[in-house]
């Protein structure tokens, strides 16, 4: 029994080797070395790259961009998703069909999500609509004040259907007694929404889990900022489009200098981020396992 129990845990152990140990150990190793292309390879330099990171202006800028991007994307996806779900829930007929239409963006790959709202696709149409219908001057999309919100909008377009689906599950599962009681007490439709539905949605574990996980995903977001850095020609390091992932991607494409390749520095930044997220996750261990057990299990 003892032996077979150990044997049965081998797949899990193998899994943690491939998916956890290999990338972590390699990244930590690389981040502590310097790679000299002309010389014999890896030279140990200690925490040099981590110190470099702490004094890197671009790093702080990208960190700030990522944080703002994440907060805006999560809030707008959640709000729009909940709004869409409340609307669909009110519909007497045709709900299935419209729900299907609203769901389609979930099939769109993130890189295509960076294409659909671009100037050649929707933006020029929208811009000209505003120009000819409301006599507004043509809006210059290459201004960060304009394209940053459109990037967030693309993210919202892609992911708000997920929040919508989750909200619909909660609304459809709402106990009938509660609604009937509200009706008997003479609650209006507005009261039902603000005092029954919205609290149920925002207190649910499913919503909490989605918000937490999508926040992490928006923070790592790469494809949409990448596509937009092309549309608005922001290919230099430290551009306003640069989220952390995009900054590291651009660094990877910059050629090696005398002091070595940027690869160890990129690993140092990733390892640093990983360490932070690990510490935060451990501090929140109880909440995370509770949400995981309640929302999914």
């Amino acid at each position: 029994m003892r032996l077979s129990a150990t044997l049965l845990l081998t797949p899990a152990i193998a899994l943690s080797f491939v998916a956890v140990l290999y990338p972590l150990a390699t990244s930590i190793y690389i981040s502590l070395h310097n790679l000299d292309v002309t010389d014999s390879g890896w030279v140990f330099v200690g925490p040099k790259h981590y110190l470099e990171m702490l004094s890197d202006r671009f790093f702080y800028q990208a960190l700030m961009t990522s944080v703002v991007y994440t907060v805006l994307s999560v809030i707008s996806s959640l709000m729009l998703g909940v709004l869409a779900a409340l609307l669909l829930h009110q519909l007497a007929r045709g709900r299935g069909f419209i729900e299907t239409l609203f769901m389609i963006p979930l099939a769109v790959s993130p890189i295509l999500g960076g294409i659909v709202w671009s100037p050649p696709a929707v933006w020029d149409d929208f811009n000209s609509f505003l120009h000819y219908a409301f006599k507004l001057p043509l809006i210059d999309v290459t201004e960060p004040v304009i394209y940053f919100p459109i990037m967030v909008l693309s993210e919202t377009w892609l992911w708000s259907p997920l929040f919508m689906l989750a909200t619909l599950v909660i609304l459809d599962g709402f106990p009938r007694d509660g609604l009937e009681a509200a009706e008997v007490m003479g609650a209006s439709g507005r009261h039902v929404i603000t005092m029954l539905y919205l609290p149920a949605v925002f207190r649910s574990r499913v919503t909490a889990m989605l918000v937490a996980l999508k926040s992490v995903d928006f923070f790592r977001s790469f494809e949409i900022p990448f596509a937009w850095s092309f549309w608005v020609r922001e290919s230099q390091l430290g551009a306003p489009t640069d989220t952390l992932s995009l900054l590291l991607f651009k660094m990877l494409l910059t050629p090696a200098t005398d002091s070595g390749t940027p690869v160890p520095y990129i690993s140092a930044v990733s390892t640093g981020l990983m360490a932070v997220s690990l510490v935060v996750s451990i501090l929140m261990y109880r909440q995370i396992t509770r949400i995981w057990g309640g929302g999914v299990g």
Partner: protein
Amino acid sequence: MNPVKLFVYLLVVTLTLFYTYPLIVIVLEGFDVDISPLLAPGVRLIGGVPYYSGGITPSLIYYIDMFTVQGFQKLITNSLSIGLGSTLIAVFAGVFSAYGITFYSGRSGRLFDFIMLVMRSVPPFLLVIPLLLTLSGLGFWDTHAGMVFAYLTLNSPIAYLVVRSLMNEMPRDLVEAALTMGCGVWTAISRVVLPVLMPGIMVTVVFMLVLTWNEFLLASLLTGPVSKTVSVGVWTGVGEQIGTFRTVEFEVQAAAGTVALIPVTAIILLLRRRLVKLFALSAA
């Protein structure tokens, strides 16, 4: 009609436009049809300046070019073989790991779940740099086998988490009864666990295929002319250009995007209500 109802319908129409209009534009652009509200048919805007493009003339030219000259079908077979390979291995490993963790580990199972949940959301470059160095060092850069391995490291935590949540929902008594009756571990998995979980596992496989089909960052850095995948092809075209900051004509992107979108849309619409859990656990 009362004003509240009217307001609801107006909002629904607005949202429908919001969610579908960008896709309509993309699909039509692939056929070289440019629609702009409030403009005369055939008038296009380039940087805000209207000019007459000779009317609306839908054409299949971008599709014909994509499949006969460029060979887009090669990217589709690449994506399918890489996706199938990594998905099958990841789900296989996920089933066995989840079985071991669910039935043979006490409280440490929760810790393992926690680690996998953390690994699901690693910074992407924590995977990219080791993979880039390992694969190019071993001569596996731009090969199908290399990409299968890359997606294995990316997706196996997700496969594990999904299968594990399926197994948690499964009645434990069933497996325990089978084991008490004296059936071996392998029989318990193949005769009891797998048949019960099969629908869920099929859904997992299909969904993981969608994830690898849509994945862009790893594919753009780890593939070249040989094993380029569909989502990279949507951005850079099929040609052998490596510089990712150059791209192709917009109509080509639109046509490729449409082709990439069709199978995934069908799958996503079929999965429906399961999507919340699947997307939550995955890191798309």
